[in-house]
């Protein structure tokens, strides 16, 4: 038997090309352009998946991108939407959410247990008895979830792009095409987006057999496809609306972030099901789904149909079915077919039995619907089940109403109210820059839809130019399109409100009875609308049920919030490719050549260590040893570098830093500590004074931009005569450190490095290898050292030159980890490592850096208050030599009498001292050097360490002159 019809006028399939796919091992043949679902149907397979909760067998429902029970998977994708995704040759798929396949799913009898799986089951079942929680958890974990994630999956990331247009039109149906055409003809640059594989919308399936729209169709399609001012994106979904018409469009090749001047929403409608017993049995579908099958894929939906209808569209679908050779045994019209117009008469004229004021009460059938039972409606809108008419059928088509795709209109805060005349939500007014056209706007007549789209397109194009428009728009229809309550109870239930989550009418009502009678609460408790289709076929009926239950109006009941994403969007598309800057210093080639292992520091990549020894720790220790005994060099180009000029520059520096800077001598440097208004340490660095009115200061790597911004802002708000320049990227820096620093650097520079001319903490300008530099003699790592600041263009040459000239003494580049260890041995606090969001300079052991006698600095007043209120202090500690227990780590807690008494902020094994040493906060102001502290390690063990005075290494600072004659012997 063939399920494929003869050629349809607007079919999407290319009969000259066949494709072969395999679903659960069964080979199937289709045509190019077929979706997976249509290929399955063409091969006589209607079983497309199992439902989420009860694992009921399901077939196609909407064919409109929310057939959640036609969800399949393969190794690349966990969720393949059978109703829209193309059957590509060679594709191999299996069902989602089954154990043992769609047909033999282990859980296929689960609905027999539905009595126990009541609404809110997760909350109740997992609440008590508590002893059963592991049992339920195991069952739920095994049965829940859609699709198996391949943990080895890589790739699938798609680049994000930007798009700009005057008018963005969402939806390429009659209204959308007309809007795009009109806007482009008014001179606007237009982008037209549709989630379907082809443009045309309802014109090509609901109106495929309506000859009166043939000319309009051709004109619109030609205009849209041949106008270079219109950029068309098919198979693309506008997934959200953000402020100022910023809309992500998810295309098969990734997301386009579109900034549109004006937006026309021609998003149309979702057809809504009628709720009756077994409305989920395969063969029961929306009438528009049957029309899509016929018109797009030339698939015969069934042989014999029964229908439930509440609008003229139902009769249009009936005519399409008849034309496709389907016999219609009965049409249950919830009202009177005489009021439906010309189409109902044509259907009746073809001999179809129409039952006025009837609904479908139940259907029978296990693998496929086999009969439908109709009952008359009484005056209160309920079915009179004493009078049943049962008709055989293998298909049931529902055409009882629509829900508009208003998601993004909600997002842009349009004023949306329920229009009882039409029976749907409709925007009463729209924000600036936003238009709605077509059926989402309540305009139903096909010619009116086109006129409405054209009018909206003209208005949008005019608005984009800042002009007024006198374009006319037709009024919304006055004919009811959606039934008030196509929802019927049944003693055996299985009348599904939500096909995603298997929510039956009684479940939803029980939730309301249990007190979840607010639309947002009932959604969460019942999970209505929380499945993959996000309520596209269940939210409207849910609102109707709750409104009726509470006796409130639809507007009083309201709708749930329609947040982005409008449609599931792959994580690989959302993530895109890396979209953050990654900054490298000019020394990068040398780092790579020296086998650096890199780490991210802010936007920068910095060498963590150089991989020259067997283990990471040995590398770090070899690097520290070179600095302590010979010569090391570190790239510190990532430091923020800011220059401040002007007559008020000394005042600016005094106000920014806790230490006084205005009394610093020219040619000297000073440690700079910065606090915020609350007195919390935010940054530190070194200030160089070049001239009376000229300072240069470095900030920590991560804060160069924020430090610069803050400085600029303060200069403005204080009205001071000063200017700041951020030279972070333009200048580079390296630190040459070790006892041999002076000896090896002197021959390479024109600056006199002698102790007399260039003492500790001085700064000098001159040349190294003939390149202009500033040398600052600073001592972070605790050895004689020179920080060399130079132009970015000279940096690599100076670095490489130093490496070459100092190779004879075994110079080693050292990384961030070695620098941390060296600084730790000196007891230097690293801001944000040894300080947190509350640390003030007193706690951090730096009262010497706070100059209270100044008139003002940021944080001064707070520090005055905080000074007598200290409750913790930073201390140095050491482990006993020979300790060989578990490794102490940062954030390990100090314990005293069973209570937390502080925490470690930095700890490392020091090769210099041959033991662990570190910094910790002790929440006890009486703690003193020599006290024992207890540290709790990862394994729970308490180990003892001793508080020691800081710095650990070279407390007298003698290493700063270690190469001067006689100085070496003084070093302990």
């Amino acid at each position, binding site marked *: 038997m063939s399920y494929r019809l003869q050629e349809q006028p607007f079919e999407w399939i290319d009969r000259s090309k066949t494709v072969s796919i395999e679903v659960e091992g069964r080979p199937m043949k289709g045509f190019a352009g077929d979706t997976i679902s249509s290929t399955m149907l063409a091969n006589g397979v209607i079983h497309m998946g199992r439902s989420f909760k009860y694992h009921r067998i399901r077939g196609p429902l909407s064919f409109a991108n929310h057939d959640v029970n036609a969800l399949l998977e393969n190794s690349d994708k966990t969720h393949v939407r059978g109703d829209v995704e193309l059957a590509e040759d060679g594709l191999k798929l299996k069902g989602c959410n089954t154990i043992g396949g769609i047909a033999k799913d282990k859980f296929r009898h689960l609905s027999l247990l539905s009595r126990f799986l009541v609404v809110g089951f997760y909350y109740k079942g997992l609440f008590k008895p508590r002893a059963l929680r592991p049992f339920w958890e195991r069952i739920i974990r095994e049965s829940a979830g859609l699709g198996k994630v391949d943990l080895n999956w890589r790739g699938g990331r798609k680049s994000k792009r930007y798009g700009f247009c005057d008018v963005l039109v969402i939806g390429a149906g009659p209204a959308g095409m007309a809007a795009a055409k009109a806007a482009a003809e008014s001179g606007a640059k237009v982008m037209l987006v549709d989630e379907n594989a082809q443009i045309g919308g309802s014109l090509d399936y609901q109106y495929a057999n309506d000859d009166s729209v043939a000319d309009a169709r051709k004109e619109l399609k030609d205009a849209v496809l041949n106008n270079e001012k219109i950029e068309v994106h098919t198979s693309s979904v506008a997934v959200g609306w*953000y*402020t*100022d018409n*910023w809309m992500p469009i998810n295309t098969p090749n990734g997301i386009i972030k579109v*900034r549109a001047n004006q937006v026309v929403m021609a998003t149309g409608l979702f057809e809504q099901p009628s709720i009756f017993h077994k409305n989920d049995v395969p063969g029961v579908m929306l009438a528009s789904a049957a029309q899509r099958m016929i018109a797009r894929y030339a698939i015969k939906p069934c042989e014999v149909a029964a229908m439930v209808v509440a609008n003229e569209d139902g009769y249009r679908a009936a005519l399409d079915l008849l034309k496709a050779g389907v016999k219609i045994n009965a049409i249950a019209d919830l009202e009177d077919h005489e009021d439906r117009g010309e189409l109902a008469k044509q259907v009746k004229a073809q001999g179809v039995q129409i039952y006025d004021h009837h609904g479908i009460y139940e259907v029978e059938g296990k693998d496929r619907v086999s009969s439908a039972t109709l009952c008359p409606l009484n005056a209160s809108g309920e079915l009179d089940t004493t009078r049943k008419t049962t008709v055989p059928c293998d298909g049931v088509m529902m055409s009882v109403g629509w829900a508009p795709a208003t998601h993004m209109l909600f997002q842009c805060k349009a004023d949306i109210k329920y229009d009882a005349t039409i029976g749907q939500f409709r925007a009463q007014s729209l924000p600036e820059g936003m238009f709605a056209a077509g059926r989402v706007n309540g305009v139903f007549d096909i010619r009116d839809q086109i006129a409405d789209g054209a009018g909206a397109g003209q208005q949008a194009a005019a608005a984009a130019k800042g002009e007024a428009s006198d374009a006319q728009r037709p009024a919304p229809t006055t004919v009811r399109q959606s039934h008030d309550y196509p929802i019927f109870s049944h003693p055996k239930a299985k009348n599904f409100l939500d096909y995603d989550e298997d929510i039956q009418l009684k479940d939803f009502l029980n939730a309301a009875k249990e007190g979840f009678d607010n639309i947002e609460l009932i959604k969460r408790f019942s999970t209505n609308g929380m499945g993959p289709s996000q309520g596209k076929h269940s939210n409207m009926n849910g609102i109707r049920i709750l409104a009726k239950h509470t006796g409130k109006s639809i507007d009083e009941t309201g709708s749930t919030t329609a947040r982005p994403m409008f449609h599931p969007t792959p994580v690989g598309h959302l993530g895109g490719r890396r979209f953050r800057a990654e900054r490298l210093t000019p020394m990068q080639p040398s780092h790579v050549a020296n086998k650096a292992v890199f780490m991210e520091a802010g936007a920068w990549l910095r060498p963590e260590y150089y991989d020259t020894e067997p283990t990471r720790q040995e590398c770090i220790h070899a690097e520290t040893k070179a600095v302590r005994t010979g010569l090391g060099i570190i790239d510190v180009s990532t430091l923020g570098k800011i220059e401040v000029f002007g007559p008020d520059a000394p005042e600016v520096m005094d*106000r920014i830093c806790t230490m006084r800077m205005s009394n610093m001598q020219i040619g000297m440097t000073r440690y700079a500590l910065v606090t915020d*208004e*609350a007195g919390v340490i935010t940054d530190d660095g070194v200030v160089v004074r070049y001239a009376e009115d000229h300072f240069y200061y470095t900030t920590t790597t991560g804060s160069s*931009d924020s430090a610069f*911004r803050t400085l*600029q*802002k303060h200069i*403005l*708000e*204080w*009205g001071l005569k000063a200017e700041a320049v*951020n030279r972070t990227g333009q200048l580079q820096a390296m630190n040459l450190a070790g006892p041999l620093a002076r000896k090896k650097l002197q021959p390479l520079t024109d600056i006199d490095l002698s102790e007399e001319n260039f003492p500790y903490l001085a700064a000098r300008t001159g040349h190294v290898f003939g390149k202009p530099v500033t040398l600052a003699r600073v001592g972070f790592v605790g050895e004689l050292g020179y920080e060399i600041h130079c132009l970015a263009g000279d940096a690599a040459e100076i670095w490489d030159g130093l490496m070459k000239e100092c190779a004879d003494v075994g110079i080693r580049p050292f990384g961030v980890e070695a620098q941390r260890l060296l600084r730790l041995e000196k007891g230097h606090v690293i801001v944000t490592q040894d300080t947190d969001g509350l640390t003030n300079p007193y706690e951090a052991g730096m009262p010497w850096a706070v100059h209270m006698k100044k*008139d*003002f600095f940021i944080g*001064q*007043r*707070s520090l005055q*208050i905080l000074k007598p209120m200290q409750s913790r202090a930073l201390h140095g500690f050491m482990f006993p030599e020979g300790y060989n227990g578990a490794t102490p780590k940062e954030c390990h807690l100090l314990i005293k009498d069973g209570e937390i008494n502080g925490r470690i902020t930095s700890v490392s094994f020091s090769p210099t001292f041959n033991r662990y040493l570190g910094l910790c906060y002790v929440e006890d102001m009486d703690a003193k050097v020599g006290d024992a502290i207890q540290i709790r390690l990862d394994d729970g063990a308490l180990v003892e360490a001793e508080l020691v005075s800081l710095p650990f290494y070279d407390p007298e600072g003698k290493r700063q002159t270690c190469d001067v004659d006689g100085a070496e012997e003084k070093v302990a």
Partner: protein
Amino acid sequence: MKLIDCPYIGARPTSEFVYGHEVREMPKPSEASDKEWADYVFCRHGAPGIKKEWWHHVPSGMWFVFERDTLNDKFIRLVDIAEVQYEL
């Protein structure tokens, strides 16, 4: 994403801007009581209304003070920096 009208180069997305907080008057540190000072440092008035705010446009490196209605997120006017300058 919201657009902010940069006075020099026109509408730019908010991702190009850094919010620099509301313009607030600092009490004189030498005169404020501890309580007044703590209130200034820690307490922000979050109620919606028309506020003067600092905004830094990163690509051009410029600071601006705008008046913004935080109820509807509309920028109202560019404020002359002189209006918000203060002496210590």
